[in-house]
């Protein structure tokens, strides 16, 4: 089977304030070009799972594969590289670097990757901004644009290195319905036009229903 992202028996405990079993034997796989959403109540462990999948959280047992390659146990430096190249991430609160311009924010991950020349990176970034219909904002300071615009910039930044998978932690959670709709249609378009895999944690049932697959979580388990 051709999974972009796959987990085998992932378990995680929180030590504080008391020992708590957050994730219980999570095994799942995301196919290439699949638009999946994770739903569940607060405390069901869906965000915790997402951060493990994003390689930022390394404190777990079990195995994580990205493009059929074992990620678990890699060094932090290596994980940063993997994250940089293969994973795009969109947060609930847009999280742009407020002192930089929109264009610089989008270019930053590509500059870090350093595979292309500056001119190519700038061209790519402009392309992404055009695709998301925010080209006119390119030279604005990131702190000067609206919430919906910020989220689109964050998506552009997540896409700049053409990642294998785009992850979102309630990317529409902080947006009004118009902007939510906008973000959803962007995701949909990315899946259809670019064959991108997406994994989105959300509270929004309408949003989840329109995705290819809903992964329901409860008390640290995946419900089938």
């Amino acid at each position, binding site marked *: 089977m051709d999974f972009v992202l796959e987990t085998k028996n992932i378990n995680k405990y929180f030590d504080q304030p008391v020992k708590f079993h957050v994730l219980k034997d999570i095994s799942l796989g995301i196919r290439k070009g699949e638009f999946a959403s994770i739903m569940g109540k607060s405390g069901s462990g869906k*965000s915790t799972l997402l*951060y493990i999948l*994003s390689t*930022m*959280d390394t404190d777990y047992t079990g195995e994580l594969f990205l493009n059929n390659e074992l990620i678990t146990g890699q060094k*932090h*430096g290596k994980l*940063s*590289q993997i*994250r*940089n*190249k293969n994973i795009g*991430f969109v*947060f609930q609160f847009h*999280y*742009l*670097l407020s*002192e*930089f311009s929109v264009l610089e924010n989008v270019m*930053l*991950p590509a*500059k*870090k*990757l*350093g595979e292309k020349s500056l001119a190519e990176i700038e061209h790519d970034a402009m392309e992404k901004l055009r695709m998301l219909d925010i080209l006119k904002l390119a030279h604005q300071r990131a702190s000067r644009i609206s919430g919906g615009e910020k989220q689109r910039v964050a998506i552009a*930044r*997540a896409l700049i*290195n053409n990642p294998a998978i785009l992850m979102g*932690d309630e990317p529409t959670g902080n947006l009004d319905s118009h902007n939510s709709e906008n973000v959803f249609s962007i995701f949909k378009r990315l899946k259809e036009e670019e064959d991108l895999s997406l994994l989105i944690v959300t509270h929004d049932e309408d949003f989840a229903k329109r995705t290819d697959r809903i992964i329901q979580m409860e008390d640290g388990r995946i419900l089938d």
Partner: protein
Amino acid sequence: MINWKVILNIAKTHLLTKMKSTVTASLGVTFGIGAYITLVSFMTGLNEMLDSLILNQTPHIHIYNEIEPSDEQPIALYQEFEDAFNVVNSVKPKQSQKKIHNGLPILNYLKKDEKVYGATPQLRAQIFYLSGSIELGGNLVGVDIMEEARLSNIGDYIVEGTAQDLKNSDNGILLGDGLAQKMSLKKGDRVQISTIKGDVFPLKIVGIYQSGIAEIDNIQSYANLKTVQRILGEAQNYITDINVKLYDINEATTMAKSLGKQFQVKATSINEANAQFETGSNIRNLITYAVSITLLIVAGFGIYNILNMLIYEKMKDIAILKAIGFSGNDVQLIFMCQAMIIGVLGGILGLIVGFVLSKLIDNVAFETEALPTITTYPIDYDIWYYVIGISFALISTFVAGWLPSNKAKHIDPVRIIRGT
């Protein structure tokens, strides 16, 4: 793989958007380094001036014939009392001359030695200065004045007339400043001197000599070696002291020892003669460094504080950078770059401030009776102080930046992003 361009760009943006903190932190370093440069230049300048006041009048090696009792009294040679406990009362100094035995051959030997920069003969005579019926006790030193001027800074202390004037005059005298005032004499006057034996000689005052040390200026005068030999009625090989100046002052002690043994004379090195003086300047240096290092450490804490605050403010940025693929090391480098930029800017500015302040002090008038050659405060412009200053700026900013940036390196992005 480290992408310096990206890291420097982020560091630069952080610094520019936090201009106030950047300027404050840089000024902290500037103040520390500037104060260090000023202080150390001024203090060592003063130290050197005080040292040279004494040291330039002290030869590296002073050779003379000490009047002292024999180590072995004659009775020790008498075999019959070999095993006895001998008590000798009223021991007298050994009968000998004040002059250095074989003085001129020793002088020639020294002048040929390649370690020796120069050696000059002196003849010290006890005399009386006569002023009417008043007799003032004092010394007359017979010197080879041109050689003396080359080896020591006696030329600086001749406040009226020149060394050449003395050389050209067969019966000239360089009168001590204190003596000239006591006897109301000035350049061009005549002064009568009398030897211990009672012979009176008139000498012409060709110059006034002021060393800055009253005890010397009140009793001592200089004349040509030949003049003094003639006054005393001694031959041309009669010299009582030889002053030696070496190329390397550190060899003075060992060389003094070997000369003393070789020629059966007393030879003291500058270190022996000025041991207490050395201690004084060492302690002054110690104080200078203690104060400077304190200043630099205070500046270091300033940087630490500001970087710490900056990192606290940038917590979210750090989390984002890590989320989009910057490693802990990259993040640490970003903040280290900021610390080092602050250090370099502040340090260089500090060197400039220090130099300007030193220059200012250097131009402040400072005139004192004791130091005829000094007109402004002394400053030592040693390039090494500047090297030490900038090195310390870099080291202290490095350490001050290391601790907070190391914290940034280990920040867990998940905790920041999830807000726990």
